[in-house]
Structures are given as C-alpha cells and as structure tokens.
C-alpha cells in the first residue's frame, strides 16, 4: 500500500447470515481523496461489506476501520462525516422527495442549500411528488441528492446508478467528479465495470465474500481482452487478423477479441480496409473474472 491515509481499512472481515458465509476474510483499503470502485457480481457481498462499514451490521471477525474509528462503536460521530446511498432506495410513501431530502440532511447535521437546489435541478427531480409516486430511478435520485447535498468527507454509494437513465448517469458522473475535486473520498459499488471505470482511481474486485484483486483499472485490464465489432468496405484479408482471436467473419463483418493493450495496433491494421462501422467493447467484468479464474488455476498449477 502507498503512504496515503486510509479512510477505509478492512482486514480479514467475516460475516455470516446463519450458516451462510457472506464475507470470508475480506480486505479493503481506500485512501483519502480516492474514488474506489467496489466491483462484484450480484450476491458477492458488496452490500454486506458496506453495511458493516456503516455499523448497521456487526462483523463476526476481522477488523473494519472507517475514518480511523470502529464503525460499530463510533456510529454517530462517524456518520456526521459520511453520506450513504443505499442500493434499494425505499421512501416514505406519504412523504415527498423534498421532505425526505431535508429529513436525511438534517439528521446528518445540516445540508448545503445551494447544492441541494443545484442538484435537484441537474437531476431534473420533482421534489413535490410523494414517495409512492416515484419510479425506481427517481427514488434513487432522491437518495443521491440527499447524500450529496451535505459536505462530507466520505461518500459510500451502493450501486447508486441502478435505475438511472444514461443522461442521468452522466450527471451522476459529473457530480461525483466534483465531489472528488472537493476532496471527498468515494466508495462506489457496482456490478457493471463500465459504470465505475471512468470515475475510479482504484478498483477492488469481490467474489464470494473476498476481494480477489485490487489495483488501478490498467493493472486489472492487463492481459484482459476487448471485443471489436467492425464492418469493412472490403473483404477481410488474413493479414489484418494478426493479434486477434475468437474471430468470426461474415462477409464484410468482423467480430473478434484483442488484448486490451493491443487495440491501437489492431486498429492500424484494419483502418486501410475502410471501416464503415466500428464498436470496441472494453473488457467486461465477466472477461476480467474469466481471466482471474485462469490466473487462479495457473497459479495453482505452478505451485
């Protein structure tokens, strides 16, 4: 680990629901000023970890420190310094979104009126609707506005963009960028890699209750493969296919995967053929996983 101050420091955390082991020795380090992506498939244990960090659940073993304190013991002091957006936002049915924002803000110790107004406008939220009238995306917006309207050191966001449309997701990215520029630390969980890759300085990948890899996006993508879909104006010659694998050619259409570091070289080879349409899919979480599984098994074979 580098010398930065750890805002979140989790070591060997375990938590069981009855017999089911949801967390099995989880380690997580987030440094001040970072946006940290917390990635894992559904059911991996992201929400469980976050609830332990918030002192909502009590960990069974290991240790968890948030802003230098034990979250189970120093709940109230800690919570003054952080804000949380839950994964499943449920609002009070008869209370308006505006009322919910004010309630949550006040309980955290006050909110910044200018930010509140600004966020409501940017997220195009109607604060006078009742909780039961909001769609999932709009409930999510209420929670996001409530969390970001206070000036806090740490933002803990549990799949905050699920249910937001792409336009609103852009607004969200901007807003998190601003928070980061103001010095906030962000823990951002998601099961979709592309959601966090543009924001996150570092990523931790969690699977079955343990972090299997942590590092920068580039670290993680090393050796992972992107997918290319291209439509060319000429038939595809063999020479252009160098460095590609999983190749499917259908007339002038090509689909193949390429080492993420080699995307540029592959483009140089395809460009002379006249590209009429092109998409490059960055490595998906699944392909990262596949690679992790592979390294797992090669490591084991090596030892």
């Amino acid at each position, binding site marked *: 680990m580098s010398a930065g101050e750890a805002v979140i420091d989790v070591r060997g955390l375990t938590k069981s*629901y009855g017999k089911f082991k949801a967390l099995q020795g989880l380690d997580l380090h987030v440094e001040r000023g970072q946006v940290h992506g917390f990635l894992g498939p559904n059911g991996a244990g992201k929400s469980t970890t976050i*609830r332990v960090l*918030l*002192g*909502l*659940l*009590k960990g069974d073993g290991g240790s968890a420190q948030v802003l230098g304190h034990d979250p189970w013991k120093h*709940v*109230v*002091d800690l*919570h*003054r310094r*952080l804000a*949380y957006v*839950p994964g*499943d*936002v*449920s*609002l*009070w*049915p*008869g*209370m*308006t979104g*505006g*009322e*919910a*924002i*004010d*309630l*949550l803000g*006040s*309980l*955290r*110790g006050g909110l910044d009126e200018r930010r509140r107004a600004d966020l409501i406008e940017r997220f195009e939220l109607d*604060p*006078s*609707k*009742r909780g*039961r*009238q909001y769609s999932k995306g709009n409930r999510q917006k209420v*929670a996001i506005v*409530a969390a970001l309207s206070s000036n806090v050191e740490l933002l803990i966001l549990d799949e905050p963009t699920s249910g937001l449309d792409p336009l609103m997701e852009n607004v969200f990215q901007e807003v998190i960028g601003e928070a980061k520029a103001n010095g906030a630390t962000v823990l951002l969980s998601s099961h979709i890699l592309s959601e966090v890759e543009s924001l996150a300085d570092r990523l931790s990948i969690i699977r079955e209750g343990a972090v299997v890899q942590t590092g920068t996006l580039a670290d993680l993508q090393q050796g992972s493969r992107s997918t290319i879909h291209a439509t060319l104006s000429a038939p595809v010659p063999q020479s252009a296919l160098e460095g590609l694998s999983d190749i499917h050619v259908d007339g002038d259409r090509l689909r193949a995967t390429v080492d993420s570091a080699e995307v540029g070289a592959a483009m140089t080879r395809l460009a002379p053929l006249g590209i009429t349409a092109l998409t490059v899919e960055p490595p998906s979480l699944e392909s990262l996983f596949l690679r992790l599984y592979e390294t797992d098994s090669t490591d084991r074979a090596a030892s």
Partner: protein
Amino acid sequence: MAGATAIAGTPPLLRAEVKQDGRLLVPWALLTTLLSASSMIYPLVFPSDQDKAAFAAAVGANPAMAIIFGPAYDLSTADGFNAWRALSLGGLLAALGVIFAVTRATRAQEDSGQAELLASGVMGRASRLAAAVWMCLVFSIVLGLVTGLVTVAFGGGWNASMLIAATMSATAWMFTGVAAVTAQLGSDARTANSLAVGTLGVLFIARGVAYALEAPDWAIWINPLAWMTETKPAVDDNWWPLLLAAALTLVLLAVAFVLQARREFGAGAIAPRPGPARGSARSTWRLALRINRGPLLTWTIAFIGLGFVFGYLATSVNDILGGDAALQQALASGAADSAGLVSAFLVTILSLVGILASIPGVQTMLKVRTEELEDRVEPLIATATARARYFASNVVIALAAPAVYVLIAGLLIAALTASADIGVEFGDAFLQAVATVPAVWTVIAIAVAVIGARPQVVLASWIGVLASFGLTILGPTFNLWDWVLAISPFWHVPGVTDPDADWWGLVWISLVTVLFLAIGFAGFRRRDLART
C-alpha cells in the same frame, strides 16, 4: 364475455394465493373454534343453578361486558352461554381475519409491485380481487364448519352450535365484501385496512350499546352485526337473518368490482396530491409523529367516541341494573351490592378502554418493524442518528398516545358519570382512568421488547393484548384462579374507591414495564438491522 376476460387467470392465482396466504388465515379459525368449544366447560365451572344465576348477575349483567358480548338471553345452559360469549366475539375475529387477507391479497401486493408482475401475465383486471374474494368466502364457510362441528363434538347442541358458527361465517362474508370495497378506496394497504377495521369497530360498539341500552328497533336493524345477534341461538334459533347477510355480501362485492373496474392500477379512489417540496420533519421525533399522524388522529377520534358511548352507558347503569331480574334477585339476597356493582362496572369499562388503547401502541411498534423491513430505517441510522434515539422516538409515541387515549376517554366517562348522580365522583372516576395507564404501558412494553430484541417473532408483540383481553375480560367467564388472572396487568389496577385498595400492584407492573423497555432498547442497539 367482458366479464369472463376480466377475471381470466383467476384459478391459478387462487391456488398461488391459498399457498402463500392460506396459512395466515388458519389462526383465526383456531381462535373462533377455541372460543366456541371452550364454552362447553360452562356446566363444569358453574355446576349449580345458583352458581349460574350468580354469574349471570355479576358478569352477564355488567353493561361493560354487554358491549363486547351483546345481550345474554339465557345463561342457564351451555349453549345459551356459548351464544352470549362466542357469537359477537367470534364474528369479530372471523371478520378481522378476512379483512387482513383481502387487503393482503389485493392492495398490499399492488403496493409491493408483486401484482404488477402478475398483471402483465395472462390475467384479467379483476382476477386479483376475484381470487382474494373466493379465498375468503370459502375460508369463511370452513371456519364456520370447523367451529360448529368441534363445538358439537365437545357437547354443544347441534342447532345452537351450528347457528352460532354460521353467524361467524356470515359476519366474515359481509366483511369480505367490506374489505373488497375498502381495498378499492384506500390508496395503500394501510388505509384500506384502517377503513375496514374502523367500519367493523364502529358497528361492533354500536351493536353493544344498542343492546345494553335497549335501543329502539331501527338501531338494531340498520346494523348488520346486530342481525347476527337477532338469530338468538339457543333461544329462538332464527336462521333467516343469515339471508340478509348473504344479500349484503353480494351487494358489497358488486360495488367492489365496479369500483375496481374504474380505478387505475396502484391508485385508490382517494388519490394522493403533490406535497410540499421542503420538509418540516427534521428529527426522528418529528418523523415518528409524521409517520403515525393518520393513526394518531383516527384513534383520538375513536377514543372520544368511546368516551361518550361508555360514559353514556355509565350514566344509565342504574336503569340497566334495575331492569335485570336475575340481578335484582342477587341484590335482594345480598350476593351483590349496588355500589360495588357500579364500581366494578367502572373498573371493567376502564380496563376495556385500556386494553383497546394498547392496540394502537402495539401497532406503533409494529410500524417500526415494517419501516425496518422496507429499508427505511437503514438510511436514517446511516446519518448521525443513534439507534437508541430513533427507537426512543417511536417508543415515546407508542406509550404516550395510548395514555392520552385512556385519559381522554376517562375524562369523558368521569364527566358523564359525575353528572348522572349514581354515586360516583368525577375525581374518583378520573383517578380510575389514571390508575389504568400503567397497565396499558406494561402491555405495550412487551411489544417494545419483541420489536427491539426479537423481531423475528413479531406476532409475539400481541401477547400482552391477547393475555389482557383473555384474562381480564374472558377470564371471569372461566371462573379462573386469581393467580392466573394476575398475569394480566389490568388485574393489578386497584379500584380507587375501594378503601383497602392495594396500590403496590401498580409499582410491580411498572417494574416489569421498565424491564421490558430495557430489553427492547438493549436489543435494538445490539442487533443487526433489517436482517431476518
């Protein structure tokens, strides 16, 4: 044709419904069966005619009892006793069972989005309501059959037992209809339930009062619950009022289906309006008040009503007692004295008020659990709000509101009795109400302990209410021992006019209250939130 498509897909839905919610209906049938069959021990508890007469005088003639049980036409036989004890209460239980089931199967599922998932399948618009109604209509009949047959097996007369059980079925039918209508009117499950239970409560009290005061005939014939009493099982055995109940059921169901066809999915006839963009509830305390605002208002009105009704009843207590031949006999023979009866009446009626007031207290605590399960507590605790503070805000309302209800009703009862010259001072009657409050708190504290420490057994929150009702109101009809009756906190409420009243009982039950509260707070601070 259009009708057939509207209810397409009902049978599979009905099957799913029975599987999912059927077992939640079972306890209600068990309760009615227990209530009715247990009446058959009457001859054992009160073997001689003299015992029965004394019982009839002391309990059967207490107008506070009449409000719950209705008129006692004949307490000389087990069947007559059963008709008095089980008919109205059994109907009440059966009606509550179907009200909750209809709401659960219609409104609650719409609220949760579960219905939407199904509505997009091959299903008519009305099939959800149709499935719920079918389930409850059939369940009502099963409830009646089981209750009646078990009672007969324990020695009840065939005609009387089956008629008593049939009135329970009929009551459940009518309230299936009522709940089907309120499910269309309310804009969420809670409102729908409140409307239906409120209707049941008003009709129930109205029936009790009508019979206690020997009100004119029209007051009886406009009240569907009174039709049930008019069957007079074990005395006249009239079956025909059941036809009225069936007719009313059909009318209510027709109304429900018309309303259902007119409203939009997820909406009620009472539509929500946009609200304020800024909030004034900025503390957990204000939030708790806000969330409970509707029930607080409704219950306050209900207890003002109860205060007037019971107070009025108290003013006529002498007339009622005077009109009771069996009682006059007991009074003449010295087995009872008039002042003692009036005082016993007052104690009972305020205990009844207390038990009723503990219901909203328990509901407030149950609401805490609902909020938790619906993920609305988590974001609050994730702010700078200590768990204890959040819990305390709700506990304060759960304890304070019922105390206020008892005092409101007590004030009215005291004012009315004092004005009526029946030998009761205003101060004494009001003090009696005040003395009842600690017992109410003990009952609610049980719910606080359950919700705080062991919310998995959420139904246990009702133990206090059930035990108090069973022991304080039903206990005397079983002639139970004092040490059993003493389990009910209301047993420890002294009669304030009694010269050797023992006030220590209130101290003991208050210690129990404190203990339960401590358990609740300690549990809520330590346990995982929203984990089942």
